């Protein structure tokens, strides 16, 4: 009985486990650059005690500054879900309607759908000074930002035409959740993924219906829409899993959102799907460990690669899958960057009120990249890619693209027969 009282008395998000040690404060990228932010301990478990008494203690302006990077959670020795407490409070208490700008930034797929057919126009226009001034002044999108280019041909269109017809010839199969970024901005990553999977003997299939994972909707105060989209994704994934597929992604943030935030923040029941959603690097690493596949790399590949641990990758605890996979490439001179936030946090850094803070957060990361002088930076998150490329000029690639580039396809196909 006594043991039951002790073990079953678990508070939501473990907030009662907080022993006020302040270790989270040491690692919060926001409280390091602005005193206006009350910090993880105060915004999280401490503030929650007050909010439970009265919603008047909810300070929306302060909590909005949280990046939801979860670095506090990674650091907390007592497993308090600090970031979850903060985001859940925003969902629960906010009465604010998102602005047009926030809605636009959050609807990555809608905007992508509109921009893609006009990529030839949209890309140069988004780069024009007057356009940036309008976005900055009217919309509140910071003028310093470079927008990720929109691709003229969506990944989905490419896939249907160029890849889909040949996928059934493989004996093993996976489903691919490509995400908005691959679809609208950088189809090359999706192509690289198909190339690698095919080489090791796996056919790739798209989900029946794919919606944006919703990470930006959550961050911008649109949990209802996020929930709707999440349910659609779960339905499609259930079908794919029913056919014996795992669902792979090439984005740490989409993966984290669908595996963890769906249940923790949106109340979506994903328990039957969660274990089958994985990151491509993790899946490959597991197959190699089990001896089921082998990768062969071309002997003339040489690159100095610095790995940046994206926040949600770190929170998932999966960094080592990607880094150990990269280290398998003989031609790679590998540098591990000190793990820290790049400051972009999805759409956060696009907002003019956050721009300076966002750059200040990333500053020491940019510095350490310049010092490491790599040929490219590797990271599993697409928004880190924009931020790091814009701020350092060093190209950034997903580990899957690096593997695709270094892969000796013929040999790999041969040894996996």
């Amino acid at each position, binding site marked *: 009985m006594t043991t039951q009282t002790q073990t079953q008395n678990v508070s939501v998000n473990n907030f009662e486990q907080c022993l006020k040690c302040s*270790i989270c*404060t*040491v690692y919060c990228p926001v409280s*390091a*650059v602005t005193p*206006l932010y009350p910090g993880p301990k*105060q915004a999280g478990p401490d503030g929650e005690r007050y909010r439970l008494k009265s919603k008047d203690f909810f300070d929306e302006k302060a909590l909005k500054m949280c990046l939801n990077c979860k670095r506090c959670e990674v650091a907390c020795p*007592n*497993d308090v879900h600090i970031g979850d407490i903060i985001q859940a409070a925003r969902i629960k208490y906010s009465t604010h309607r998102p602005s047009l700008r926030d809605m636009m930034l959050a609807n990555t797929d809608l905007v992508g759908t509109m921009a893609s057919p006009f990529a030839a126009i949209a890309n140069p226009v988004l780069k024009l000074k007057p356009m940036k001034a309008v976005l900055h002044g009217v919309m509140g999108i910071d003028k310093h930002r470079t927008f990720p280019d929109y691709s003229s041909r969506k990944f989905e269109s490419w896939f249907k035409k160029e890849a889909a017809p040949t996928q059934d010839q493989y004996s093993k199969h996976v489903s691919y959740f490509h995400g908005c970024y691959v679809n609208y901005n950088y189809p090359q990553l999706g192509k690289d993924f198909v190339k690698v999977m095919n080489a090791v003997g796996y056919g790739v299939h798209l989900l029946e219906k794919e919606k944006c994972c919703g990470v930006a909707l959550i961050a911008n105060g649109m949990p209802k829409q996020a929930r709707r989209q999440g349910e659609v994704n779960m339905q499609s994934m259930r079908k794919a899993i029913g056919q014996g597929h795992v669902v792979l992604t090439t984005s740490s943030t989409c993966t984290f959102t669908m595996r963890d935030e769906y249940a923790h923040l949106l109340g979506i029941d994903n328990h039957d799907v969660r274990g089958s959603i994985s990151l491509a690097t993790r899946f490959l690493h597991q197959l190699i460990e089990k001896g089921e596949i082998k990768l062969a790399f071309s002997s003339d590949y040489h690159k100095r690669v610095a790995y940046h641990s994206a926040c949600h990758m770190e929170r998932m*605890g999966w960094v080592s899958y990607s880094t150990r996979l990269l280290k398998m490439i003989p031609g790679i001179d590998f540098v591990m960057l000190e793990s820290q936030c790049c400051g972009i946090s999805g759409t956060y850094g696009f907002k003019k009120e956050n721009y300076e803070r966002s750059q200040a957060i990333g500053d020491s990361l940019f510095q350490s990249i310049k010092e490491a002088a790599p040929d490219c930076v590797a990271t599993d998150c697409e928004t880190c890619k924009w931020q790091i490329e814009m701020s350092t000029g060093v190209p950034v690639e997903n580990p899957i693209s690096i593997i695709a580039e270094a892969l000796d396809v013929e040999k790999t196909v041969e040894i996996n027969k």
Partner: protein
Amino acid sequence: MGGGLSGLTAGIALAQAGKDVALVSAGQSMMHFMGGSLDLLGSDPSGNDVYKPLEAIATLNSKHPYTKIEDVSRLAGVAKQVLERVGLATTGDTTVNHWRITPIGGLMPTWLTVQGMATVADPDQMPWHSVTLVNIINFLDFPTKMIAAGLRDRGVQVDVKAVTLPELQVLRQSPTEMRSTNIAKVIERNDLIMKLADEINAQVGKGCDMVMLPSVLGIASGDKASQLLRLINVQAAYLDTLPPTLPGVRMQAMLRKHFTALGGTFITGDQVTGGVWEGDELKGVTTAKLEGDVLKAKHFVLATGSLASRGIVADYNHMYEPALGVDIDDLGLDRTTWAKLDVTEAQPYMEVGVATDAKLRCQRNGKTVANLYAAGSILSGHNSVKLLDGAGVDMLTALQVANNILNQ
């Protein structure tokens, strides 16, 4: 398993010797509470200050982890070298303890102190005549009154001053975040060292022969901290603050950086949840985040810390080791014997930890596990609060375990 001082020390020693090492750690470690000094043995079991640690170590009872170290003096030297190699130069050695000044104004014997911190060679003879104690205005983790009182008790004349800069006053808008580490970030990012030095110098009166400052600089390396000291017109040094303590945070960051530079894999924010056993041998461990995947290895080191880090856990009826379920030297089921009501007394629960053989190998169901070692504060048989032997036990047992593995 465990990324604190002991886990990282073992990891560095093994990676240095060419082993492929993965280190899993759930959350940050106790180093964030540790000041700028590492203790070897500061107090004997009856509570007297220890002057010559090696002599006192020779008299410790057979349960103490030091009895499993082959050559304390040699490994203590190696530990100092490890710190130096990661970029943490220290003063002190094993021949004789020196004294550090605690954040509440006491003096405590210690072994190694990070350079730049104030230390005293002989507690009966304070090396300064007139000290100026300069705090940052509104920084609450540095109780100047207590420190001043402690120094005055020992015959030192103390002036208490406080300085600030506009950037630091802005920081104060969020009172709970006015912490040593955030102060360091503000000063270092805005290049305020010179300005801060000017403010401090303006407070130093005639006759002052020592300026003491709270340790609020040098988060990633000690460079900025040393730079400030050089800019002060008289001799100057740092004192430990209340946690989070900067020298400890820095030590954690630098050890970890060194470990990954040696090729080690640091898996952070994850927790070891169980072992995969084959007979009496540990084949692999499972973790919360790697889900079904097993981390396989030839050798394992358990360095998950004491009760404070949940390396040992207590419920109403038991104490146990939660990660792998190895045997512990416990206090039996009578809970009333676990603690003493007088908090200043030596607390029996402090000595609870995992049971090990002479080679620091763990036991499971009474049998030795040939390839599982334990190091650091998870070990049974000592009380780091009473004996002042925390960092010494961590580093020396970690290095001994590394040796035991390499010599196998």
